[in-house]
């Protein structure tokens, strides 16, 4: 009795009413029915009160025979109004327990809304799937379009790279003659020049160097933008690198009577690409000098704090209006009216500088106002100020070897461009015996008769190119030990590595600045050859 009472109590708490179906078909509630049940099923005829329940009961007439059959045992959820007009959600089960046919009716209360909400969410999601289907189809189309465009962009980019390589080569070849011959003229190699001639030659030299800077800047920028500029970081003393840059910058400052002052950074080192670090410094300092009137001041200050190197380049120049602070770092931008007619430079320097700084993980900031000078602050990570012994480093000027005549040393120049052939002959003749050839076939035939001591070999030659000529030299037992230097206007990223990998002993990019650059490459190779032979 007690157990039955507990069971009925439990059903009541769960809002479940148990009914037994008598033989005459009438349902009798087990226990005391709750109010909600009375309001929903006011008379004994359950079917009459609920068409849904009637339908369900019709399917469950026998309340499951002894053999399991297809009859329904669970009604599913239905909603109907009670006698007070209130909507009630219910579900029902039928069962046969010990020969008694039992119907359980469950009033869905608080648990109904979460169930409805979950279903609603699921249905909304199903709708979203429909919409997502459309979006996905749209995205697939867009992706296809994008892939086509990407392929087109890649093709154009490839064409651009080929164009840049070709332009670089085609411009460097005549520049080699212009820079080289003007350098020879300036050295009075062809006899003394009067002051007017000297002035003309210096104009030619300056203009050709400007053109070279422009080519280099464009190549740099295109490499940076294509993500092909690879940094080669190393740990080096800041002071040493700044000193090297200052030695290049000082003559520019002196020409304009500008006071160039530098300080800080003593004993500090930074982990960065040394060449690019100097390029950043050079760009900032040369820019400052360019836009500072005569008798002005340009100051460089470096300091390290919390592992960060700060480089400050300030000047008393024309300044940059606030509204141009962002634009100044864009390509081909130069301060407009504020430059007061100063239109030197390529307009690429600061754009390159900013990208180089950022590629190092640093930042560049500008403080300036028109007429009040400028202050560029560059911060680079990975710096420290532990005392280090400066690495022995020979500057370019110090490294220039003392050149004495070696008339017994035979240098072969293989170069198809007549002007460049004459230039190299002229540069080398005072020191070496020089023979020049305009193509590889002619050169190889001569080498087999009389091997030279060293070959300067152009790459873009008519007939077999420089690399093919080198292969033939290396394949010939009599010639294979001759040092061969690639002298080429192919000066794009990777060219140097490509030529050295092909077996060249050294690589010089055109234009060759002066004869010192040539000797610097030639002499060590000749010395080691002499040692090897002896």
């Amino acid at each position, binding site marked *: 009795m007690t157990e039955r009472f507990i069971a009925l109590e439990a059903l009541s708490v769960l809002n479940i009413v148990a009914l037994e179906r008598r033989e005459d078909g009438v349902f009798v509630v087990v226990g005391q029915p709750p109010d909600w049940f009375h309001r929903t099923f006011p008379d004994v005829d359950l079917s009459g009160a609920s068409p849904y329940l009637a339908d369900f009961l019709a399917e469950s007439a026998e309340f499951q025979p002894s053999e399991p059959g297809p009859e329904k045992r669970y009604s599913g959820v239905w909603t109907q109004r009670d006698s007070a007009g209130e909507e009630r959600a219910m579900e029902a089960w039928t069962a046969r327990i010990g020969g008694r046919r039992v119907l359980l009716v469950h009033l869905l209360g608080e648990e109904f809304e979460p169930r409805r909400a979950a279903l609603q969410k699921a*249905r909304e999601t*199903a709708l979203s799937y429909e919409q997502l289907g459309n979006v996905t189809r749209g995205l697939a189309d867009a992706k296809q379009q994008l892939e086509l465009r990407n392929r087109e962009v890649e093709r154009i980019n490839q064409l651009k790279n080929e164009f840049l390589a070709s332009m670089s080569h085609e411009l460097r070849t005549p520049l080699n003659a212009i820079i080289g011959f003007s350098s020879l003229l300036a050295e009075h190699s062809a006899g003394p020049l009067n002051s007017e001639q000297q002035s003309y030659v210096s104009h030619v030299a300056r203009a050709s160097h400007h053109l070279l800077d422009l080519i280099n800047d464009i190549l740099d920028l295109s490499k940076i933008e294509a993500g092909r500029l690879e940094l080669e970081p190393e740990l080096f003393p800041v002071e040493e690198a700044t000193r090297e840059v200052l030695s290049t910058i000082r003559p520019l400052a002196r020409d304009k009577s500008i006071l160039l002052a530098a300080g800080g950074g003593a004993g500090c080192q930074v982990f960065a690409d040394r060449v690019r670090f100097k390029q950043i410094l050079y760009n900032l300092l040369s820019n400052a000098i360019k836009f500072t009137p005569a008798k002005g001041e340009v100051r460089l200050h470096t300091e390290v704090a919390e592992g960060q190197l700060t480089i400050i380049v300030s000047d008393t120049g024309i300044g940059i209006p606030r509204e141009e602070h962002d634009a100044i770092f864009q390509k081909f931008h130069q301060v407009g009216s504020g430059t007061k007619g100063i239109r030197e430079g390529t307009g690429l320097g600061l754009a390159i500088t900013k990208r180089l700084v950022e590629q190092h993980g640093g930042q560049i900031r500008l403080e300036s106002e028109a007429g009040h000078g400028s202050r560029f602050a560059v911060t680079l990570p990975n710096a420290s100020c532990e005392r280090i012994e400066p690495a022995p480093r020979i500057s370019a000027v110090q490294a220039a070897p003392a050149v004495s005549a070696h008339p017994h040393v035979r240098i072969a120049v293989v170069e198809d461009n007549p002007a460049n052939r004459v230039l190299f002959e002229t540069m080398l003749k005072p020191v070496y015996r020089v023979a020049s050839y305009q193509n590889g076939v002619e050169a190889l035939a001569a080498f087999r008769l009389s091997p030279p001591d060293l070959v300067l070999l152009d790459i873009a030659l008519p007939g077999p190119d420089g690399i093919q000529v080198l292969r033939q030299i290396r394949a010939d037992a009599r010639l294979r030990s001759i040092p061969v230097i690639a002298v080429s206007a192919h000066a794009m990223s990777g060219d140097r590595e490509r030529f050295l990998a092909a077996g060249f002993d050294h690589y010089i990019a055109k234009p060759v600045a002066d004869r010192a650059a040539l000797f610097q490459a030639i002499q060590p190779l000749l010395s080691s050859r002499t040692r090897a032979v002896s």
Partner: protein
Amino acid sequence: MPPIQKKICMAGAFAVGKTSLVRRYVESIFSERYQTTVGVKIDKKQLQIGDQQLTLVLWDLAGEDDLAQLRPSHLRGASGFILVVDGCRRATLDAAIDLHRRIVAETGPVPFVLALNKMDLAGQWEIHAADIEPLLRQGWACTRTSAKEGTGVEELFVDLARNMLGPIP
């Protein structure tokens, strides 16, 4: 004449407005809040057609989709049915045409009406006269409704009830 009771099933894809049409008809109410129907919602509406007292028992079936399929047992004994379509969703007309085939297989040839609902959003409709014309030619009864504004709702149920009763002498 003794009152009679007729079962009408409301069928259609989900969120086409079946419950809203019933609610508008039974209670003259429309709610912007969408509430999905769980299982079956039973409602009753009494009306007089000529001398005949009629109680419509409206079986509002949960919208069919991937989550819920039409249960043939719910159609048993139906004297008529209303296929509800959302005029703004072309796919719901295709769903209704498919449902019609399956319902008729269960109920036999009983009166039905195709309700093109959401007339208040006529500017956004994806279903046009050309889509309906083939159905009209097959003898389908079609009507435009707006559960939101009440347009065509009363007529929908009353016309179907009349058809279910057959010609009044």
